[in-house]
């Protein structure tokens, strides 16, 4: 850990960090634009200038760009030096020459990096007397809004979109003062990671179009830490709610999984939470249409429902009546995957994929089944290019030279697949699904230092899964990574359900849990009760339909594809609050759990595998300085007027029984336990860039352990 001196104060920095990264991660106010922790430094915006000194006797110093200067032991810098300060002020003044007078109508306003940096450098008046340069905007599809006038040409968008995410339809056009970032013609952006442009862009050139339709400022959104429900990777995200509607989703930094980015499915696929809710009645008012003897009723579990809901169902109907709704093939594969992972529990996280020197993909089209893994592979290759360029003494910022330095692809991605995938351009060796020549690859796998073997259930192929196990047996240093169908597939598998295809007595009455059931599954059972959040085909056929809270309104645990247990917290409560599905099942079964911690206590005793997570998860009575953690920001607005058209009485905020978070602006706002932080803010940093000063990040708990034989 080298020590550097900034304004004569010593700071410990990480090995290999540049001065800018070191300064912002210590919470110092040093403005920058083109640097991004995941994109690296290019030194083009000239905003992060600092004065650099030879030693403590050097009073003159020289100006350097902090993002291009490695933080080496004993080096001395000054942020406050008048030279550097006036230089930075000049730079921002140039940038603002053409920046439009848009902030009141700009969606970035209030969480704009450019606003923060302008305030930080003290620029407040445009002295330039000439007209502003303007651009025509493009229609970039249903997700991204384009407002090119606001651009400050930091090039972050194309560096992310082209260099990291591998997109090809976003370009930098024209030159000099007229540089333009867009497509050749109007049209939706093709990359499935285009949504990250919203967060990567330091100002309002790319903004969230779905959010725009019901726009609210960042400070008015009620947020809670949540887990993406779209695939089995369990990316961390924070949905924002106002007035009972989910407005947008933002990335929540988790270095092990999604890092700084989210896929478009996760970021933009949230409006279903605002669908018509399935109404509910108190249990006492419902006449139970099914057999009163609950042991005669089977339970149909769901890999989309939380661990708690599935456990409550299992408790209600008993282990022998606990069935998995997935088709037989999926069910068996999940069972097999679990069996393998109990033998080889060292699963690969997304970060492991980013760092691997060999990635073997067995029959998965990752861009479709687990997009963030595809991005991880792209990031991995980009890292390889840069490492090679380093050897050729090509600086990392010279992107084109970096890519041209090595004409051949890095020997990283090996793929077994028949169909074309979006990763094809990066594959160095390929094999068809019958993998007859797999033995040719074995020496390469054995030679690799940290290879990752990715397989999955999307092709419903048992041989591929078995192949992954065999390869793992041959290469003990390899890590396995299985892509599963749903967000909680792993959690459900750990609860050991039976397959519905094995149901002995068709026509039996059933209780079915939450979404994702295909209607044909229900053909096997007779009358059934359904617990679901929204109206659907199935809810109309059910003998009785219980409306339950969706993931955004409830707290629960999901276990991702690598066996990592993570908790999502309810973001809001609807006006007509619907109980969590486990509360409905509790009432049906007459269990005594008052909150999620009591249920998890029972579950931990019955399934010790979950115990490490429940021991670490924050219980509902967790407090920081005696306070709950606030879901709203300190400046959340309109509290005394939002409901006055309905009633003059201001309701007290509801109390969350299951989590230490409060539905209110009252509560703790300071340095959060990482698992409970859902928005990033510190004084002077209102944009997502505030996360660069985070000292720690959420991790969840990896549950899988080697089964003792």
């Amino acid at each position, binding site marked *: 850990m080298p020590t550097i001196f900034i304004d004569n104060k010593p700071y410990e920095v990480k090995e290999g960090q540049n001065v800018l990264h070191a300064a912002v991660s210590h919470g110092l106010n040093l403005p920058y634009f083109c640097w991004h922790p995941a994109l690296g430094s290019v030194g083009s915006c000239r905003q992060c200038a600092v004065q650099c000194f030879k030693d403590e006797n050097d009073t003159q110093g020289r100006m350097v760009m902090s993002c291009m200067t490695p933080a080496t032991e004993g080096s001395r810098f000054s942020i406050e030096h008048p030279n550097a300060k006036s230089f930075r002020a000049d730079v921002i003044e140039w940038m603002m020459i053409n920046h439009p007078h848009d902030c009141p109508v700009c969606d970035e306003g209030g969480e704009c990096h450019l606003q923060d940096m302008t305030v930080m450098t003290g620029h407040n008046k445009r002295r330039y007397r000439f007209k502003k340069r303007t651009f025509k905007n493009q229609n970039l599809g249903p997700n991204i809004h384009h407002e090119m006038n606001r651009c400050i040409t930091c090039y972050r968008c194309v560096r992310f979109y082209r260099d990291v995410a591998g997109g090809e339809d976003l370009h930098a056009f*024209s030159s000099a003062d007229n540089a333009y970032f867009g497509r050749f013609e109007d049209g939706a952006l093709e990359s499935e990671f285009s949504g990250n442009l919203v967060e990567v862009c330091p100002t309002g050139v790319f903004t969230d179009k779905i959010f725009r339709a019901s726009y609210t400022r960042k400070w008015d959104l009620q947020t809670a830490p949540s887990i993406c429900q779209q695939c089995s990777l369990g990316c961390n995200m924070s949905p924002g709610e106002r007035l009972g509607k989910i407005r947008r989703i933002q990335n929540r930094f988790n270095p092990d999984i999604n890092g700084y980015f989210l896929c478009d499915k996760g970021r933009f696929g949230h409006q279903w939470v605002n669908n018509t809710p399935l109404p509910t009645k108190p249990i006492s008012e419902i006449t139970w249409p099914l057999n009163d003897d609950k042991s005669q009723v089977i339970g149909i579990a769901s890999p989309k429902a939380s661990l708690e809901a599935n456990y409550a169902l299992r408790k209600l109907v008993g282990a022998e009546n606990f069935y998995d709704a997935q088709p037989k093939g999926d069910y068996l594969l999940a069972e097999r995957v679990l069996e393998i992972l109990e033998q080889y529990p060292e699963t690969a996280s997304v970060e492991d994929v980013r760092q691997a020197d060999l990635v073997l993909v067995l029959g998965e089209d990752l861009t479709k089944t687990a997009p963030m893994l595809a991005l991880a592979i792209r990031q991995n290759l980009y890292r390889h290019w840069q490492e090679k360029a380093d050897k050729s003494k090509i600086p990392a910022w010279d992107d084109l030279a970096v890519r041209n330095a090595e004409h051949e692809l890095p020997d990283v991605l090996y793929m077994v697949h028949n169909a074309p995938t979006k990763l094809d351009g990066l594959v160095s060796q390929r094999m068809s699904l019958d993998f007859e020549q797999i033995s040719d690859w074995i020496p390469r796998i054995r030679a690799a230092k940290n290879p990752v073997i990715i397989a999955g259930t999307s092709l419903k192929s048992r041989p591929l899964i078995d192949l992954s196990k065999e390869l793992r047996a041959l290469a003990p240093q390899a890590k396995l990574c299985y892509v599963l169908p749903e967000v909680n597939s792993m959690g459900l598998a750990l609860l050991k359900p039976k397959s519905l295809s094995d149901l002995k007595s068709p026509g039996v009455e059933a209780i079915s849990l939450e979404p994702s059931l295909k209607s044909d599954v229900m053909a096997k059972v007779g009358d059934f009760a359904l617990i679901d959040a929204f109206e659907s085909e199935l809810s109309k056929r059910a003998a009785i339909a219980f409306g339950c809270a969706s993931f955004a309104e409830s707290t629960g645990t999901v276990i991702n594809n690598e066996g990592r247990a993570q908790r999502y917290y309810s973001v809001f409560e609807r006006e007509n609050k619907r109980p969590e599905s486990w509360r409905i099942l509790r009432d049906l079964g007459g269990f005594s759990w008052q909150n999620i911690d009591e249920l998890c206590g029972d579950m931990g005793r019955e399934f010790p595998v979950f115990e490490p997570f429940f021991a670490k998860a924050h219980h509902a009575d967790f407090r920081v300085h005696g306070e709950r953690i606030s879901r709203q920001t300190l400046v959340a607005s309109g509290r005394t007027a939002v409901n006055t058209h309905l009633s003059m009485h201001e309701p007290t905020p509801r109390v969350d029984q299951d989590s230490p978070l409060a539905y209110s602006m009252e509560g703790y706002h300071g340095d959060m336990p990482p698992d409970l932080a859902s928005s990033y803010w510190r004084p002077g940093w209102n944009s997502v860039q505030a996360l660069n000063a985070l000292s720690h990040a959420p991790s969840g708990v990896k549950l899988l352990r080697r089964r003792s034989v």
Partner: protein
Amino acid sequence: MVSLLKGLWLVFKHAFKKPVTEQYPEEKPKLAPRYRGRIVLTRDPDGAERCVACYLCSAVCPVDCIAIQATEDETGRRYPETFRINFSRCIYCGLCEEACPTEAIQLTPDFEMAEYKRENMVYEKEHLLISGPGKYPGYNFYRVAGVSIGGKDTGEGIEEEKPVDIRSLMS
């Protein structure tokens, strides 16, 4: 002792002076134009709504009595879908007017807004919107902003060049 008697005499003398009280409902007070009374939403010189639903007034409001929901017309002009002020909470501090970047929200010298029902103190947008520009006649935000709206395409605003032709080599 003497000073006490002096004090008594002084106060007694005041009994013969003319009261300074203004007899309010009969004599109307003269209020300055910048008096902080009833809040209105004004229109720009073109007669369109000035408010762009930027949420700054609601954010700065110390009693949180302003609730807004933004929306857009088909040309991209942003305006408030709902703009509600709960005057039973308002403290007439004027911070909203100070925060307003478009001079839309203004306080007026009208304080006679007592009601018998609390519900009547809640003013919706149609109650707040007046038909003129209020205290600041000239300003028109959308003419100086960079966004394009109906009737003003990109580059047609005040102090704006025509849009750059990015396919040209001449720049």
